[in-house]
């Protein structure tokens, strides 16, 4: 590892060493408190009774744990259905983005049809437009699709198709495809492979890291999204888990709402623990090294 702000030698010597270890211990303690503390508070708070949660000063451990808060949340909010919906939307969005965005990025990078750069420019221009600005006209579009006159309300397509219009994906994929040498493509063409065959057997196997990044972003984006699914999935049967919890928050005891919020967060946290390395490295490939 190359040197950083403070030199390696300085950290190894007497005073530097002491300062380093004190600081490390302090940061470990503070960061654990700041980032895990609220989560601990959330999980254990949802175990407390309504009476205990209103008690001052608050208790550090639930005196009389009420696991039924979680069971209550599960049944009252129909969390199984909500979680299934969210999962289904996330997988669908992933498939649509992988197929259509990969195909488009491949065309823009390797097939380069006429006006390809103009199309790419128009796609990248959408990165400049804040999502909130588009929310109203997008909603109007979804309830009455131009030309086709289809209403996509409560249809998963209302989440999947707009997800494909993701210029960031196109940009990431195209840039990665650009780095694959032309020679490989030429060799494939000589061997008689058509564009689809080249994409499938040469480009995609080489692009696993970037496909992983795009997949992770696609899944977490659906899981975290709130306003758009709230607008286009209004029925109780089609809601996502975040929207479902929000819809129930009004008439449900605090502890039950937070218990539901904990359950809704479990899949993303597990996902994070599994794909931690890919997520963290993906985040930086996505933003840097341009």
């Amino acid at each position, binding site marked *: 590892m*190359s*040197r950083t*702000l*403070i030199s390696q030698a300085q*950290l190894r010597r007497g005073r530097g060493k002491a300062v380093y270890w004190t600081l490390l211990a302090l*940061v*470990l303690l503070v*960061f654990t408190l700041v*980032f*895990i503390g*609220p*989560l601990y508070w959330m999980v254990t*708070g949802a175990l407390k009774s309504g009476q205990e*949660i*209103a008690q001052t*000063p*608050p208790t550090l451990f639930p005196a009389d744990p009420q696991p039924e808060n979680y069971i209550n949340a599960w049944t009252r909010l129909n969390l199984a259905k909500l979680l299934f919906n969210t999962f289904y939307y996330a997988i669908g969005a992933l498939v649509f983005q992988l*197929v*259509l*965005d990969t*195909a*488009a990025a491949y*065309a823009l990078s390797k097939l380069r*049809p006429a006006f*390809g750069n103009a199309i790419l420019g128009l796609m990248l221009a*959408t990165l400049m437009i*804040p999502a*909130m600005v*588009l*929310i*109203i*006209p*997008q909603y*109007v*579009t979804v309830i009455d*699709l131009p030309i086709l006159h289809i209403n996509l309300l409560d249809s998963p397509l209302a989440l999947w*198709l707009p997800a*494909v*219009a993701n*210029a960031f994906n196109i940009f990431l994929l195209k840039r990665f495809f650009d780095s694959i040498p032309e020679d490989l493509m030429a060799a494939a063409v000589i061997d008689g492979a*058509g*564009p689809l065959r080249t994409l499938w057997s040469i480009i995609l196997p080489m692009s696993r890291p970037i496909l992983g990044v795009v997949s992770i972003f696609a899944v*977490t984006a659906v899981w*975290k999204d*709130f306003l758009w699914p709230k607008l286009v999935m209004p029925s109780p049967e089609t809601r996502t*888990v*975040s*929207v479902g*919890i929000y819809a129930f928050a009004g008439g449900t005891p*605090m502890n039950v*709402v*937070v218990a539901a*919020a*904990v359950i809704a*967060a479990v899949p993303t946290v597990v996902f*994070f623990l599994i794909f*931690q390395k890919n997520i963290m490295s993906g985040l*930086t490939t996505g*933003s*840097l090294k341009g």
Partner: protein
Amino acid sequence: MAIVTVPGTREQPGSRLRVPVRAPTRRGRRVRDNLTGYAFLIGAVLCFAFFSWYPMIRGIVMSFQRTRRGVTTWVGWDNYERIVNDPSFLTAWKNTLYFTVLALIFGYAVPFFVAILLNEFRHAKGYLRALVYLPVMLPPASALFLFKYYVYDPSDAGLFNAVLKALHLPTSEWMQSTTMTMPAMVLASTWMNMGGAVLIYLAALQNIPGELYEAAELDGAGIWGRILHVTIPQTRLILSLMAMLQIVATMQLFIEPLILAGGAGTQDSATSVAYLIYQHGFFQNDLNGAAALGVIMLVVLAGFSAVYARLTARQDAT
């Protein structure tokens, strides 16, 4: 998916046999190559057309129209007038700008210094990085209910008030106090979102050549001197990019007021521009007014970006 298979079948031996003798003309091949390219593009292009390009134009068009009982008429600047005269209009802008500035002070500086700090540690690196990023993975709705009910509880039973009380500091009513609403939202928002910025800064810090620090140290620069004269200039590009992205993101403040403050908050102290768009579009049945406010927001952000780009360009020139 059928679309994608078309170009593949074009290349099948069968179609090649149809032009056996003469090789395809150059022009013919170019047309065919273009068609293949478009076949791969069409799916994504249609999605962009329907859900990005068209709504962009539609938003501007509908801000000058009014639809009543299925009849759409042109109404000039009426929608803009109505939205500007909404009593919450100025409050919403004031709140949003206040949030943006506060978020810039806390949410922007904190991740950078956290990244500098984490970059110095040779131990527990993975653990610390994972910790900082963990809240980013939570669904915002989940995290905000935690803050609303358990952290910002206005009585002394809430986490913050309990800690403040234990430290003998004054407690606060948080979301029920008009002055604390915004800082409380910035705090929750920073906690939820800073992980991404920290990781991006960390990656940028790792690209700084060690010799630069070496040289600065030989010139007698202390830790602050090195941060000021090496770290910041070396990460300037990413710093200015992140500032831009953060401002655009915070100007769209929506879910924090919606969940933490139930929308408008105490005496409109939480109303944001984005919330006003939502309010007009979906509660006051005024999609056209909401679209007009969307256009105003776009113009403000575009104007801001232009000024920002000019400022940073000038800085680069000197």
